[in-house]
Every structure is written in C-alpha cells, then in structure tokens.
C-alpha cells in the first residue's frame, strides 16, 4: 500500500525532470500567460461595464440607419453588423458576459461541492470513499452534452408548466439558470476526482502525520493542513474547467439549448452560421472571441499547474 502511494505521489509531484528551460520559465512569466491574463482582464472589464461604456452599443436593438442590411467590419461597426442591423461587437461583448457568468458560476459550485466530496473521500477512505466514488463515476459516465441538452430542454418545460415544489413555482428557471445548474452538476465529478487524488497523496505526507501526532483533530487537519495544500491544484482545475465549460456551452448552444438573451457566444455562432457565406463576420468574430478566451484560460491554468507541479494528465 505504502509503496504504491509513494509512487503515486512522485508521479504527481514530478511530471518532468527539471531542465534549464524550466527553471528559466519560473522566473519570467511567458508571453502566453501575459497575453492570457491581459485578454481575460480586458474582457471581464468590458463585459461587466458594457452598460456604461459609450462605445458599446445595444445588443438587442438595431442601430438607427443600419437596419435590414449586414455591413462588413469597418469604422462604424468594428465587427460589422448583422442582418437586423445590430452591432456584432456589442453582441460579442454581451455574449462574453453571458458565457463567462455561466461558466464561472458553474465551476464555482462544482468546485465547492466536488472539492468537499473529494477531500472527504480522500481523507476518510473506506466505505465513504467507495460511495463517493460510485457517485462520481456515475456522473462521469453521463454523456455530458446529451444529458445537458436533455435537462435544459426539460427545465424549459418545467419553467413553462405551473408545477410547484414546496409552494414555489419554477418561473425563475430561465435558460441562464438551467444551463448553470446543469453545468454545475456536470463539473462536480471531475473536480472531486482530482481533489481526491491530491488529498490521498497529501494525507500521506509528513506534515500531516506531524500535525496528527501533535494532537490535531480531524477537522483541524482537514482545514489547516489538507485544504490549503489542495487549493493550488484546485486553482489549475478551475481555470481549465472554465475553458472546458466555455467550449461545452458552445456545443450546447449548437443543439439549441443555450442562453438566447443576451445571446451567449455559442448562440451567436449557431444562429449566424447559415449566413456565413454572405456575412462571415457574424460568425467568425464570436468564434475568435471564444477561441481566444478558451486559450487564455488554458494558458493561465497551465501556468498555475506548472507553478505548483501538477500532473497535466490529471486535468
């Protein structure tokens, strides 16, 4: 048992032998990370102050004088306008707001629930671990996109119906809510799995043993020794997870089950795809935004993972 654990720990701790380039990378943040962080910051600021910025137009109304024709990108419309005269740039920025809100909120819920489950499973082991493992295995075996579109579709029906639960109706269950709920559910299992592996290897370390032999109770060991040491891995997981969820949101939108208003990036792409030959800018710009954002999250996540020596394959 112990040799195996040690083996696992070394695998987790040393993905690559240290080379000269690696030590150099440690000191100077690579150009990729700088780009990623800048892009994300700029995007978040733009998306959440969009209502107050003068150069971002409405996403849902045609610009006066531009209706009924799609204009290419230029001075008037940075990213062009769509066939209803709406500004594609503004739609991309509001799309960022929708997409980012959904992915970040879901990953946070997934991290809190999955992280708790993972720490408990990894620390207590035994039957607790087995029960939690079956639960996470089941969640992992769910075909994500399919179950997501099914659930979002059913939630639509639920919201439209007059069913109630404990006296509450379901009219609050908009697309934004249902996509967030489903994505939170789907992000529990991967997080739980990685956190469990980390907890298993951390709970074998000397400092945990030291804390226990000094008389620390289970709660203290968990809160003061294990959780702080799981957080680095968790940070990397969060960034990578957001990237995955952004991509998944695109897929979901493509099957017709994402947020239509304000349209997420996926919805923008899916809705304008038919007109790609006449007006490429309507589809290509949201695609580029989606790609750059996913790339940035991956770059930052990769950097965090490298910084804390986390095995890439685990993500």
């Amino acid at each position, binding site marked *: 048992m112990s040799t195996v654990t040690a083996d696992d720990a070394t695998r987790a701790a040393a993905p690559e032998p240290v080379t000269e380039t690696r030590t150099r990378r440690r000191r100077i943040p690579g150009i990729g990370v700088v780009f990623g962080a800048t892009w994300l910051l700029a995007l978040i600021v733009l998306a959440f102050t969009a209502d107050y910025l003068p150069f971002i137009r409405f996403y849902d109304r045609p610009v006066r004088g531009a209706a009924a024709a799609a204009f290419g990108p230029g001075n008037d419309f940075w990213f062009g306008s769509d066939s209803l005269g709406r500004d594609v740039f503004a739609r991309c920025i509001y799309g960022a707001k929708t997409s980012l809100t959904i992915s970040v909120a879901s990953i946070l819920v997934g991290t809190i629930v999955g992280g708790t489950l993972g720490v408990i499973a990894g620390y207590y082991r035994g039957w607790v671990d087995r029960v939690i493992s079956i639960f996470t295995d089941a969640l992992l075996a769910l075909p994500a996109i399919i179950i997501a579109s099914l659930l979002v579709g059913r939630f639509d*029906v639920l919201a439209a119906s007059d069913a109630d639960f404990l006296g509450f109706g379901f009219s609050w269950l908009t697309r934004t809510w249902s996509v967030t709920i489903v994505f939170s559910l789907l992000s529990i299992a991967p997080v739980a799995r990685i956190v469990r592996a980390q907890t298993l290897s951390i709970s074998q370390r000397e400092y945990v043993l030291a804390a226990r032999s000094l008389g620390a109770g289970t709660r203290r060991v968990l809160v003061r020794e294990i959780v702080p040491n799981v957080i680095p891995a968790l940070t990397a997981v969060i960034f990578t997870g957001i990237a995955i969820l952004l991509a998944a949101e695109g897929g979901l939108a*493509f099957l017709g089950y994402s947020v239509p208003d304000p349209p997420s990036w996926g919805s923008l792409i899916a809705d304008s795809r038919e007109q790609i030959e006449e007006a490429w800018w309507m589809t290509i710009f949201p695609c580029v935004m989606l790609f750059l954002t996913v790339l940035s999250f991956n770059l930052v996540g990769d950097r965090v993972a490298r910084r804390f020596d986390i095995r890439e394959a685990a993500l």
Partner: protein
Amino acid sequence: MRYVAQRFAQFVVVFVVVTFIVLASTRIGSTDPVQDLAGGQVDGARRAQVLEDYPYLDMPLPIQYGYWITDLVKGDWGYSYYQSQSVMDMFKQRAPATFFIVFWSIVMGLLIALPVGVYSAYRRDRLFDRASSLTTFGFISMPSLVVSVALLYLVAARYDMFPTVGGSDYVAPWDNPYEHFKNFFLPSLAIGIGIGGVWSRLLRADMALTLQSDFVTLAKAKGLSPGRILWIHALRASILSLITSVALQLGSLISGAIIAEQFFGPRGLGDRLVFAIQQNDLLTLQAIGVVIVAVVVVANLAVDLMYAVVDPRIRAARALS
C-alpha cells in the same frame, strides 16, 4: 480475481445509477408520460394503445425502470410514435453514421498524435518540440465548434467536394469509399484536431520519461537504429496512457460527433436526439442515453481490466488515483 469481481460489481452499480438518471431526467416537468410518448395532440385511441403497449408508464419511477431495462435487455427497445418507427430500427439506420464519425476521428487523432508525440519527445526542447507544443496547445484550446466553423468557412463553403449542413446521407465505406470519405472527412477532422492535440501532449510526456529509462540506453548501446528504438521499444512502453485516454474519451467523442453531425451532414443519432428532446420522445431518448452510457462504462471497465492484465502494479495505483 477478486479485483475483477469488484470492478464488475462497481460497473453494474454505475450503469444502473446512470441509466436511472437518464430515465428520471426525461420525466422532469412532465405530468403524464403516456401523453409524452403518444404525442401532443392525439385521440383517445392512440393513448389507449400506448397504455396497452406500455402499461407500466403510470407506475412509480423505479418500477418503470425495472420494466424498461428488462425490455431493453430482451431486445425490445420500444416504439417511437412520433417517428412511426421502432427505436431499434432507428438505431440501425442512424447509429452507423455516428459510429463512423467517432471511429474516423479517433483515427485522425492518432494520426496526429503518434508522429507528433513521438518525434517531439525525441527532439525534446528543440525547435520541433517547441513548435509542436505551441500548436497542440492551440488545438486543445480550440473548441470543436470553432474548428467546425473554420472548416465550414474555409473548406466546405469553397469546395463543392464536401457537403455542408445536412447535405449528405450516410454512405457505407464498403459501398462507395469515395463518397464515404467526402461525407466523413470534415466532421472527423473537426473532432480529431482537438483530441489529437490532447493525445500528442500525453504521448510526448510519457515518451520523454521512457526515453530516459535504462532499457533505452541499453538499446542505444546495442546499436539499434533510433527509428527502431523509438517506434518499437519506447513506443510500446509509453503507449498505455494513450490507449487509456482513447477509451476514456469515447463519451466526449460521441458528444462531439453528435454536434459535428449537425454541421457537416451525415445524419446520425444527433438530429434524432434533438427532435426527441423537443418532443420528449421518451423511449428514443432513453435508448440513445443508455447506449452511450453503456459504451462509456464498458470502455472504463475495459481499461481497468486491461491494466490489471498488463501491469498488476498499476492496478493498485489506479485504484488510488
């Protein structure tokens, strides 16, 4: 042996839990499953017929599940009143297209991963390695939706050779290989690029470790050619996690295939799935769900058993990770 039995028990439990989740989620927000199955505006006769065919639909969920899964195992997958077709026939018609997208995207992924992974591990930290690691990182970060749009815009819309949205039907490779290629090249590429990036990085990491091990040094000392060392000795030692990843990614590959189908034509399970969700065509949904879940769970089990056979040490380690 005990290990195998344990894995198998877990496999059964997971399978039951997941298929039950699928069944239960089709019932969310629905007050009357009989009505769902019979279709929206139908007369009493059809409703009566549905009730006669599926008398269990009024019962509590676990009992419904029992009846349904028994039927499923017996080979009676149900009847879709919307499509006027039995679900099994629907599968026979649609599943091959989805299967081939998944199959060819695995082939594409491996065609990217094997050369890139092996060669960049061999030339570690050299120009090729740097360039390929940058490129694969980009590939990984490209959602398949974006790749699909790019392929649609850059290839499908400009060359008449490839069909676009809904423009093609399934053609079996043994009937007409060229038509088959035309229909399946783009969707498989759209998925294969991303997964190829993931696999190249995986293989590179393992390969780089293998190349530092003693038996490689020995092989070099014996004077074996670098090609032979790389492609036969070292590759065999490092390919295990690649195979694992192929098996574990099957689920997301199927999901990807269902989306790619919507872009590039060969109509498989994807559009039936979308229709079935819109109409809440219970038995079709449940059948599609159960098949995909079965594939994923069996692949997982296969990986575990393969590890047990290949390397008993890993068996215990995997139980931990």
